[in-house]
């Protein structure tokens, strides 16, 4: 069938992207001006210690062989050990990746939930005050520096109003006194699985401010894209036809025109998700969020290459998978996509 063929084609393409990134990551590792053996050997190593490390890391093998080894390790999820901490990277990822994904998924959802309805409203009231206000808001949301927005949110909601926590992922009362057993690593899901509504509420409260911070930029973009797509679609003949058929205006806006604008809106999901994954570095630091961003920023400062490589690979795979899902969703929303 058209759809199945389309999905298969997309999957093959995605696999190539991942392979390409693997190659890139490996090459970058070769040209970075630092000696992994020296890092691995620990502080103030002797020449012998470095030589020993070089052999342990198999750094003298031919390039091709080392790439094969690297690709295989990445493929099996064996990311090796951190040069710096000597901890298993896979184990670190198991703790940090869910934290970042939870934040990324939540903020992406928030961005769409805010941006798309506002874009529809602005298009429906084109030129009137909701449109003007929305346009101003979206420009502000896009232009606002992340750290500044984060500080304002912390100031208002944590400091003044005191209704949301300043930072962290869980309160001490939960994480120390009655910790959640880690199943998926997603606190919201783990809390639900354990039937712990207190922990769920606590995790949700901690999520809101960092997610809002991360959602600001993509929400602004989603609003702009939805608005312009909707304005174009509202001019189309089938919208006039829907009006002539006596459908209500909300039904026409959300039930008939918006599905036609879902193409651009879905594109925003990819953009927003990528933004959340990479933008997480700063936001995770500001909100003391124990995720990949903080993990990799420490690794970058320490030139801890295996960690950088592992995070790059994981982020790439998340991104590629997300895009694959978006492509499939797009084909499901618009049956003509699979034909092209």
């Amino acid at each position: 069938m058209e759809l199945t063929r389309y999905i298969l084609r997309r999957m093959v393409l995605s696999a190539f992207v991942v392979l390409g990134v693997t190659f890139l990551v490996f090459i970058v590792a070769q040209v970075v001006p630092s000696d992994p053996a020296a890092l691995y050997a620990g502080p103030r190593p002797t020449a012998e210690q470095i030589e020993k490390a070089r052999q342990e890391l198999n750094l003298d093998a031919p390039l091709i062989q080392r790439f094969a080894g690297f690709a295989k390790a990445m493929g099996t999820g064996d990311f090796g050990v951190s040069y710096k901490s000597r901890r298993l990277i896979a184990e670190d990822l198991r703790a940090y990746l869910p934290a970042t994904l939870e934040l990324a998924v939540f903020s992406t959802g928030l961005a769409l939930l805010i941006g798309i309805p506002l874009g529809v409203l602005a298009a429906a009231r084109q030129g009137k005050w909701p449109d003007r206000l929305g346009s101003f808001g979206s420009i502000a949301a896009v232009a606002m520096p992340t750290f500044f927005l984060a500080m304002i949110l912390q100031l208002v909601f944590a400091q003044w109003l005191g209704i949301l926590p300043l930072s962290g992922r869980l309160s001490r009362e939960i994480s120390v006194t009655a910790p959640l057993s880690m199943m998926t690593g997603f606190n919201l899901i783990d809390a639900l699985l354990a039937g712990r509504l207190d922990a769920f509420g606590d995790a949700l409260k901690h999520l809101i401010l960092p997610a809002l911070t991360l959602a600001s930029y993509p929400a602004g973009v989603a609003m702009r894209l939805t608005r312009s797509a909707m304005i174009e679609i509202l001019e189309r003949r089938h919208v006039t036809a829907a009006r002539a058929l006596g459908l209500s205006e909300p039904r026409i806006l959300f039930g008939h025109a918006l599905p036609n604008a879902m193409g651009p809106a879905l594109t925003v999901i990819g953009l927003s998700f990528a933004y959340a994954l990479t933008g997480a570095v700063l936001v995770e630091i500001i909100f003391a969020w124990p995720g990949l961003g903080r993990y990799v920023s420490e690794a970058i400062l320490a030139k801890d290459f295996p960690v950088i490589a592992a995070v790059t690979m994981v982020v790439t795979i998340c991104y590629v998978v997300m895009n694959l899902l978006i492509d499939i969703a797009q084909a499901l929303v618009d049956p003509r996509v699979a034909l092209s």
Partner: protein
Amino acid sequence: MPLLNIRNLSVAIPTPDGDVHAVRSVSLEIERGEIHGVIGESGCGKTMTGMAALGLVPKGARIAADRFHFDGEDLRENAARLRGRRIGMISQDPAAALNPVLSIARQMDDVLRAHRDMPRQARHSEAVELLAATGLPDPERVLKSYAHQLSGGMQQRVVIAQALATGADFLIADEPTTALDVSVGAQVLALLRKLVAERGLTVLMITHDMDVIAEACDRATVLYAGLSVETGPVHDVLQRPGHPYARALLAALPDAAPHGAKLEAIEGSIPPPRSQIDGCAFAPRCPQAMPVCALQAPPERTLAAHRWLCHLPEGSA
């Protein structure tokens, strides 16, 4: 009393270069149960007249009329309420009139849900019935399809079924056959005739094709430059046209009158829609124009139900 009763309707659309007089002065009396043809060259205001009756004129457009009534209700106030309840639309391009990303089932169901208070299952059977009533052979399959998977003729039948689903008893069909093959177009006309007979519908049939008037209509009104210049029973308008423009239209048709004959064979062109018109709008192109024609608006001539606007006395053709 006519179902649709329009007297001297005008629609002016403000633009940066001045008002466009899309409709200057149109009078229409459409009786219950008839198919009333409205014919004229492209740009003469056919579509805008229909859109005004639906209350769907462009933003800022000014509507004026001495009378603008549908079944006794003033369309200036009630068009939005009547549209989709009593007044339906069938547009020229069925491919564009259907939503490309929603299944036909969803689009039929939306209409039924807006107008009929019945459970989901009943709406589905109703949709199947309506599609079958438009002559679609496999309604269940059509419901599962998207617009791009249907032929033009099938799309137009779906559009007609949607209009029926609203429960409307008055349909405005804007060149419903123009985008279709000749034989498919003829089938759609036959379908409309059948629906009018079976369901007691009334149809305003917009066209630029004399054959459509001859084939499908009971009465016809000829528009020229936003003015209704002649109206009457089809055989009068076709056999004994009173207005020189209507005569020119007929003369422009080859004797064999093939389907789809266009109206462009008359020399000259319609006055620009922004211009002011003094006297008779057709005067610059009229082979029988007299000095008075350019100065004074022509009077109405009447022969029973057949009326037209011209300075020439009756029977002078």
